[in-house]
């Protein structure tokens, strides 16, 4: 699977350029974080990749095929690539969860048994209890459950590429951890994930590489430790730094290329024990 964006420029009907000459290459099985301050074009980039904004110039290629060409079959594209928008809770309409998740499958003609299996799989993946939830209405769920249901609706077609726009916004500590573990499982099973997020801590925890956008241009496309290296630049780009990096800099601890929390604790422990021997 090869997803390339070649010098794409996107502009809404009368506004100035939202995305300006974007070149991006997404390889299979990658977990790519997308960040930047408000209005830098993060969501537009995600929606352009998902086929909602035809670039003025440049292309979006999936395995070499331009997804905006007329004869490009959108059904198969939807099967391979799914997008979950910010605050996705307002898309529900079915009378119960089972049909709500199954809606995605209805448009991709697969056999009833397979539909049954896939729907159960999706509910398990997002931690929704099958027999308790089967004929509960999607509108009667809590905020966190609705967010996980929206995720289930996307992963039921087992897409190769999953795009998420701020999946944690509006959730509490528990809700966020649940979504993170779901995304980590999906990534482990080989799904390529593109995630827009403001939270440097989560990005440095889960993302292999991070794209930083500013005024529609890509400023960085690198591993977290290099993206968050320079405090002054991070403040200027409005992306902030993960707390592990901030504290490590304050006490002069070298995290060498790995900003995750577990590594931070390991390094601290090593430094402390070394000082005592």
């Amino acid at each position, binding site marked *: 699977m090869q997803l390339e964006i070649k010098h794409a420029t996107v502009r809404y009907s009368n506004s100035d350029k939202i995305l300006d000459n974007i070149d991006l290459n997404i390889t299979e099985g990658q977990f790519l974080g997308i960040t930047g301050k408000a209005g830098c074009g993060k969501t537009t980039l995600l929606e352009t990749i998902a086929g909602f904004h035809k670039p003025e110039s440049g292309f979006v290629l999936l395995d070499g095929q331009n997804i905006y060409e007329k004869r490009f079959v959108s059904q198969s594209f*939807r099967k391979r690539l799914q997008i979950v928008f910010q605050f996705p809770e307002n898309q529900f*309409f079915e009378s119960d969860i089972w049909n709500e998740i199954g*809606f995605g499958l209805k448009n991709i003609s697969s056999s009833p048994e397979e539909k049954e299996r896939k729907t159960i799989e999706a509910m398990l993946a997002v931690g929704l209890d099958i027999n308790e939830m089967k004929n509960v209405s999607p509108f009667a769920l809590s905020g966190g459950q609705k967010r996980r249901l929206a995720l289930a609706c996307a992963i039921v*077609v087992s897409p190769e590429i999953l795009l998420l726009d701020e999946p944690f916004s509006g959730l509490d500590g528990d809700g966020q951890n649940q979504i993170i573990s779901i995304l980590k499982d999906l990534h482990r099973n080989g799904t390529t994930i593109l995630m827009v997020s403001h939270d440097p801590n989560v990005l440095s925890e889960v993302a292999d590489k991070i794209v930083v956008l500013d005024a529609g241009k890509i400023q960085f496309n690198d591993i977290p430790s290099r993206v968050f290296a320079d405090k002054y630049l991070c403040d200027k780009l409005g992306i902030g730094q993960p707390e592990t990096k901030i504290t490590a800099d304050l006490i002069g601890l070298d995290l060498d290329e790995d900003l995750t929390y577990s590594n931070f604790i390991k390094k601290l422990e090593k430094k402390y024990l070394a000082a005592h021997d």
Partner: protein
Amino acid sequence: MIDLTYQTGDSILHRMNPTHKFLGLLICTIIILVSKNLAGTIIAAVLITTLILLSKLPIKKVFAPLKSLFFFLIMIFLMNALFFNNGDCLYSYHSICISYKGIEQGYNIVLHTIAITILSSIFIRTTTSIEIMRGIENTLRPLRIFHIPTKDISLIMSIALQFIPVFFNDIDRIRKAQIARGANFNKGSIITRIQSIFPLVIPAFISAFRRADELSTAIEARGFQSDYESFK
């Protein structure tokens, strides 16, 4: 605010007090409707030309609404000309009866309808929707003597205006979400296309009503005293 029809400008009409404009429109419409004969149409024509000159609006824009009315007006004219029979038919073929009276009445109605359409088009293009709401609010005020809660009505109108851009974005987001899930809206037979309306309309109503529910709590918290109660 989606003021698709408002043309920015600062002609006398744009600056005129919205209430007077609204009352003026109502009065002109009634005059045109009441004046059955040719005189009414001439007055209307003179009135419209002066208003168009005053408002400095592009002519094409003012006459735009007539395009969609074209067939409707022809139908009205034919209905009157062919089927109106009160006696003196020039030529009749069981129910069809062409008469002078019918034809005259036909083109009178058509001309009056055109006049009213242009008048309201001028009014809409020179007044923003918020000004229109204020105009209506003032015109309705005398109805308070019939115990009609006009303050509540004007609140409802201004809430409705404020909701329009919000609902528009909601529906757009719902549409994108459903397309992302594989729904397609313009392919397949009539049945599938009608069925494709459900995943849009139901969520649109749910999110609209949820917003209304939250807003009603908010205005209650802001000490909203309904007009209706104050009348009791």
